[in-house]
């Protein structure tokens, strides 16, 4: 369908290969950092969300490895690497 799909359905169209550990992590104690809250707005895959406690939660599943959160939040807040070789998203069209 060309109609609007939910993000989950949209990400479900992509090919992802499992990695042994998440390649992006919120650094300990940074869950409430204002810099991290920006990730909620900028992530094209919608992987960051704000919970009731005012903390940012993050899931790696569906990460498009675009780099936006690294640019927006910075490396003091995020531990950021690419997935190990052969893991992560594999674009078929790009």
């Amino acid at each position, binding site marked *: *369908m*060309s109609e609007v799909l939910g993000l989950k359905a949209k990400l479900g169209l992509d090919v992802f290969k499992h990695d042994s550990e998440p390649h992006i992590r919120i650094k300990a104690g940074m869950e409430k950092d204002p810099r991290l809250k*920006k990730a909620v707005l900028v992530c094209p895959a919608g992987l960051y969300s704000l919970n009731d406690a005012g903390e940012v939660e993050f899931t790696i599943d569906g990460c498009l490895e675009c*780099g936006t959160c690294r640019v927006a939040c910075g490396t003091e807040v995020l531990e950021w690497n690419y997935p190990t*070789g052969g893991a*992560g998203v594999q674009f078929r*069209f790009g």
Partner: protein
Amino acid sequence: MEKFDVIVVGAGLAGLAAAYTLAQEGLEVLVLERGDYAGAKNVTGGRIYLNPIRDLFPDLWKKAPLERFIAHEEVALMAKGKSLTVRYSGEDLRQEPYQSYSILRAKFDRWLAKQAERKGAMLVTKSRVDDVIMENGQVVGVRAGGDELRADVVIACDGVLSLVAEKAGLRKPGKPYDFAVGFKEIIELDSAVIEDRFGLEGDEGAARLFMGEVTRGKFGGGFLYTNKESLSLGIVVGIKDLMDGQPEVQAPALLDDFKLRPEVASLIRGGQTVEYSAHVIPEGGLKSFSKLYGNGILVAGDAAGFSMNIGVTVRGMEYAMASGYYAAQAVLKARETGQYGANQLSVYELLLNDSFVMKDFQSFKDAPVALDNPRLFTVYPELATTIMSELYAVGAGPKNRIYPTIRKHITIRQLWDMLGDFRKVRKL
């Protein structure tokens, strides 16, 4: 321990162009790619301009798996509930050599990698480079998946974030102001439907840019490119503007709303979305470039910041391929001296300065500032469409005269502001 003449990090356009050029000259080149295949991690909006790089790779283009040559250009000013579109079709766009093509990177990069391999380059996929090996202040190789690989020169073509250039001390993590994020869907449609819908003959293609309400007035815009059997439909938006809110919006919603616009919905109707992708884009221009070379290392493509948005054209891939080519030429020059220090490799910058790459970035060095003007994405689309709306309107009563209708919207204050905007845009 294995030692190569050159290690290229990243099998994108810069890396493959460098590898192709070096292998052609008989050098032992290793290309390390973290994806399953070349192009697996690469995203484009989708169009490449060939004219500036045609002669750098004369044998390449005849069989290149490009999509459609762009024969129709459109730009739409988008306001709430209305839009104004300008369409340019010209014989110049329909004459060979065609100046630009739509492109899908997973397909193209994989093919380009094969061409580089055919010249003798060695491609290792599923290999992430974790660090550079430094000895006496010189990069002498890389660490990848526990292996130490050595070379006379490392060329960092690892994309917009270039962790390799960071590790080599040539750049710091980028600032939001200098980057945009692009995200897009590939929407499959029959080629016959695409041709009918966009008024295309055969391999002709169309490119459409949309500015204004599609990014809620933030820096950026929407884009649509026709491929052979699909459309590339997406949004580019400045990361700083997204972060600042005003209005606050989550990036994915911009694309969803874009698809719902009647101007777009009718074009993608019946299509099937088959992929969703995203990538950061360098937008900072000359001022935000990384250092281009160091001892034993060169930086090319997005890794160096070579991407340019001047509103009407948005370009990166030809700069990537050209910079890969010139990086290769710099290696060949340094090889004559047998040394690969920053001194010897600095010829890379001279080569770039003499080429269209740096000449373009010099000419358009003020583009990021000129385009960093919210009025371009708010006031003008609103103004232009409002005037059009009133010019076309025929109400129940008598119709207003045309000139006063226009004049009502363009006040002295408006003219003054426009002059200010014009002064900025004049730098383009």
